[in-house]
Structures are given as C-alpha cells and as structure tokens.
C-alpha cells in the first residue's frame, strides 16, 4: 500500500506463465494500475506450473497466475504438499481449445453424424475412430494436456467420455508443456491437444492443426486461471491483497473495452511477457480465431472472458465443479469436508470487499457451469451427479 508519508510502495513478487489469460495481471502491472494502488510488482515468468506452485507455496512469490484446479489441489494436499490457497480474482473464464492433427480431423469428419460444432457429435465420431483403430490394431490416440490438475485435462475427459470414449482405457492422455504442444502435434507425438492461447492458433497458422472445439462448446463457463495467494499471507496482508484485486479489476475492464484491445495485445506481446505476434493475441481477446489452415474463421463471444459477464468474480460453484472432476477421475476421494475446502478456495467475498461491487452479476446459467452433457451440476449432490456419468473412476 502507498505509505502517504514516505510515498513508498509495497513490493510484491508475482509469478506467471506466458499465456493470454495472464492478461489482467500483465496489463495491471504494465499499464500502471498496480502502481496506482501503491504496489510495486515484480513479475517472474516461469516455465512450468510445478515451479509456479512450488514458489508460491514456499513464499518466493506473494501471488501467482495459477491453474484454478492447482489452487484447489494445493489446498487439499493432493499429490503434493498441502498449502491453503485463496483465489480472490478469476483471471480468465474459458479460453482453451481442442486442436487435432489434420489426419485425426479428417478421420473424425469422415465419421461425423451431425453438426461438427456439437461436442456430442464430435465425441461420438471420435468413439467410432477409436473403435476402428482398435480393430485395426493401431496404437491408441494420444491427447496432450497441460497438467494433471488442469481444466484442460477435465475438459478433454468430459468431452470424450460423453461420446463413450474412456479417457484412461481408449486413448492416452499425456502432460505436455504448452510450448512443446505445436511441435509434438507436427511430429506426431500427439494426435490432439487441449491448451490455452496462443498455442492453438500457432498450430493452425503452421498448418499442423485444426481447432475442433472452443472449450466453451463443452462448458459454457469454466474458471480457467486464478490469481492465487497463500491463505496465511492473504490474512496477514488484507489491504495489499485488496489493492491487488482492484488493480486486476481495472486491468480486466481496460482489456474488455474494445477500443483498448490493440494496446492490450501489444502489451501482452512484449518479449518479457508472452513474446508472440500481437495479432495472434488479438484474435484470442476478440474471440475471432482462425480454426483451420485453409483460413476458415470462427467467432465466439464466449471464447475467453477476462472480466466481462462477471467473469472476474470467483464463483464457488466453479470450484465445486472442478473438485467433482477430481473425484470423477480418481484424483481425490469424495468427502463433504474436501468439498467445503475446495469451494472455499474461491473467494467472492474478498473480491466484493475490494472492488465495492455489492451486486454480483446475475448468473446467466442455471447451474453456473452449462455443460453440454449430463444433468445440471448440483454441488450439494455430487455423488448423485457423478453417478449419472457411466464412465468414471470412482
């Protein structure tokens, strides 16, 4: 916080991965919104989510751009040391896409019975492709995703399982660092991947991939990355955290104003940030993506939400949905206590207090998630909800 007497600013160290959904953080710092709140933020670009998590956990970072499921997994102590995390700001809702190799794209389209934008139709076509490959004795298809505890992992699984493809039995899901995705698709190490921007566009531009789905086809609303801080730190520094939330909120508003998009894209494109062509970043912010090498463009107002439609305000229902996926795929046991911890990671109260926005944006979706398959999500009846999906690991 700005100390009025000395004019000194609070130094903060914040980690991020070079992805477009770090936009609010990067713009908050670069465009001076953080400084205006009395914060002196040093950004640390990292190469892996493991590094971001560990450095946040150890206190080498005060806050971080983090996969929403990692914040929950850390708080539950899943697969790693237990460190309670709070997420008082959602950096991005949606924003990923599923990209497939030209060969897999052709195979799916040949089996397509219905609208290729309908994820149920593509998942069922995928099942026919997978079945035919099995009969022919071919190797299972390989799908790349970014982290075991990632929205990408859950979105891929949710999609294919709805069509009858078992993500653990019928195909192989492997973790790949985002910068390796495009090369792996080109070299045939993977047949498809689910990743955030700019990597899907990079694959299409190079002619090695087709964007099959925006993940907003699968879930209308999915919390993707959050601003994360250790709970004890957040409790000890409530004013600093509130200032940080406000700086992010102003940055998100700035990015969502169409007149500012070019400037925002130019900031994100800087070599010390995402270091990629500003035009490619612009496509993501605008939700106007080239989806196939022949130049076909698809537009969606739901591609990536940075603050608009109340996206910045953390929604505990989203956290509960992510926890339910951990349970569904055998990463976490189901318990009421764990569910409460998971939902409690997302902190709309901190967001409201910092921004002074008392009226939460009315949810546009009945269940807050809007999945294309299965019954509406009900966090108070997760067992029943998960039992309605035939393919599951619990």
């Amino acid at each position, binding site marked *: 916080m700005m100390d009025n007497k000395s004019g000194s600013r609070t130094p903060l160290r914040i980690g991020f991965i070079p992805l477009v959904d770090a936009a609010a953080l990067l713009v908050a710092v670069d465009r001076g919104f953080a400084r205006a709140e009395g914060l002196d933020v040093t950004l640390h670009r990292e190469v892996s989510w493991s590094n971001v998590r560990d450095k946040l956990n150890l206190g080498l970072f005060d806050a971080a751009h983090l996969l929403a499921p990692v914040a929950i997994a850390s708080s539950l102590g899943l*697969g*790693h040391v237990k460190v309670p995390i709070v997420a008082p700001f959602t950096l991005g809702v949606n924003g990923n896409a599923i990209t497939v190799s030209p060969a897999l794209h052709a195979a799916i389209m040949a089996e397509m019975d219905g609208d290729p934008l309908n994820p149920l139709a593509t998942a069922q076509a995928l099942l026919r492709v997978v079945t035919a490959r099995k009969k022919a004795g071919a190797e299972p298809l390989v799908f790349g995703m970014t*982290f075991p505890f990632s929205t990408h992992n859950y979105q891929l699984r949710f999609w294919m399982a709805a069509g009858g493809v078992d993500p653990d039995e019928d195909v192989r899901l492997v973790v*790949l660092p985002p910068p390796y995705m495009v090369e792996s698709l080109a070299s045939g190490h993977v047949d498809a991947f689910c990743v955030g921007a700019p990597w899907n566009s990079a694959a299409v531009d190079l002619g090695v991939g087709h964007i099959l789905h925006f993940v907003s086809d699968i879930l209308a609303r999915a919390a993707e990355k959050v601003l994360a801080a250790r709970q004890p730190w957040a409790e000890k520094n409530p004013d600093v955290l509130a200032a940080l939330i406000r700086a992010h909120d102003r940055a998100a508003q700035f990015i969502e104003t169409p007149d500012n998009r070019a400037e925002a894209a130019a900031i994100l494109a800087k070599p010390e940030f995402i270091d990629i062509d500003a035009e490619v970043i612009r496509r993501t912010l605008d939700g106007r993506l080239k989806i196939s090498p022949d130049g076909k463009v698809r537009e969606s107002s739901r591609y990536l939400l940075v603050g608009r439609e109340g996206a910045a305000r953390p929604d505990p229902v989203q956290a509960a949905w992510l926890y339910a996926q951990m349970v569904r795929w055998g990463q976490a046991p189901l318990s009421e206590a764990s569910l409460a911890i998971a939902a409690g990671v997302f902190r709309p109260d901190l967001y409201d207090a910092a921004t002074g926005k008392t009226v939460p944006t009315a949810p546009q979706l009945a269940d807050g998630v809007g999945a294309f398959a299965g019954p509406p999500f009900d966090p108070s009846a997760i067992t029943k909800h998960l039992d309605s999906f035939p393919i599951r690991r619990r």
Partner: protein
Amino acid sequence: MAAESSPKIAIVDENPIRAAILEEGLREAGFSAVEHVGEMNNLLARIYQIDPDVILIDLENPSRDVLEQMFQVSRAVRRPIAMFVDQSDAASIQASVDAGVSAYIVDGFRKERIKSIIDLCISRFNAFAKLQDELERTKTALEERKVIDRAKGILMKAKGLSEEEAYVLMRSTAMREKKKIAEIAQSIITASELLR
C-alpha cells in the same frame, strides 16, 4: 558408501555440461547407477525404462510438469513416485529451489539417503551457476576490451592522439559522465558509423 545397493538416479537436464558435473559428483560420492536424460521427447517412457529410485530435474525445464503426471494413479506407473517434500526441512527445499533443482523419489526411499543426494545436487548446481557466471563475466570483459580497442583506434585516427592519450580521454569522459569506459567506447563507435 552406497556400494551394496546403489540407488538408480536419473538426471533430467537439457544442459549436458551441468548434467555431467552432477553425474560426476554423484559417482564420486559412491552412487554408481546414474543415467542422464537429455532428450525431452517421450520423457516418461524413458523414465519408466530406467525405473529410477530418484529423479533429479532442473527448474528451468518445462518438462517438470510432465513428471508431475507420475503422481497420478496410473497403470503405466510401476512404482509410485513422490516429490521430495519434507515439510520439516524447509531450509533444504528453499536451498534446492534457489539452486534451481528439484527431486522426485520413489515412495519409501529412505529419507537420510535422499538428503545426501539433494545436498550434493545443490552444491553441484551452485558450482555450475558460479562457473557459468564467471564465464559470462570473462566473455563480457573480452567483448568490452574489443570495443574499447576499436574506439581507441577511431580516436587516434580522428584526433591524431597516441594510444595512451586516446585511452585517457575515454577514461576521463567516462568518469565525468559517470559511465563505464565500454559505454563511452560504444558511443564513439556508433557516432563514427553515423558520421561515416
């Protein structure tokens, strides 16, 4: 020391020099079963093939996230692997992160044994960083020397100075402007290129 049943150690590092320094250190300490993985394609398959007790990976490697997959219950994994996290020893974790290395161990591996491996790792990684630092400094010094020599030549020719006088002129200008001699020299070169 660990001769009777030397644990299998895999070093995942794209930097062959650092990996060699670490491998040598481990062998000197009696760990004879050390494998270096420098190729990140099909990393997991390679790791399963080696079937190590301990995996060491540098923090600059994006493939750390690939290793995280091994925490997951999967038929592909023969033995459960966990990251070395001993909450009672925060100093050691801090030191390893500072040095830029992290370790994954097979569940049940004896704590005292991993400790000695980690400590060795930290000291070798730090030694490598120091070496690289020195190399970088030497390189910079060499380059600065070249720039200064070129600028000296330009001054000698343009102003009819001796080598000594040219150097003194640059040094006094640098002191007056609170800059490094190399910076002044670079300005002279740039200016002479513009005026050519």
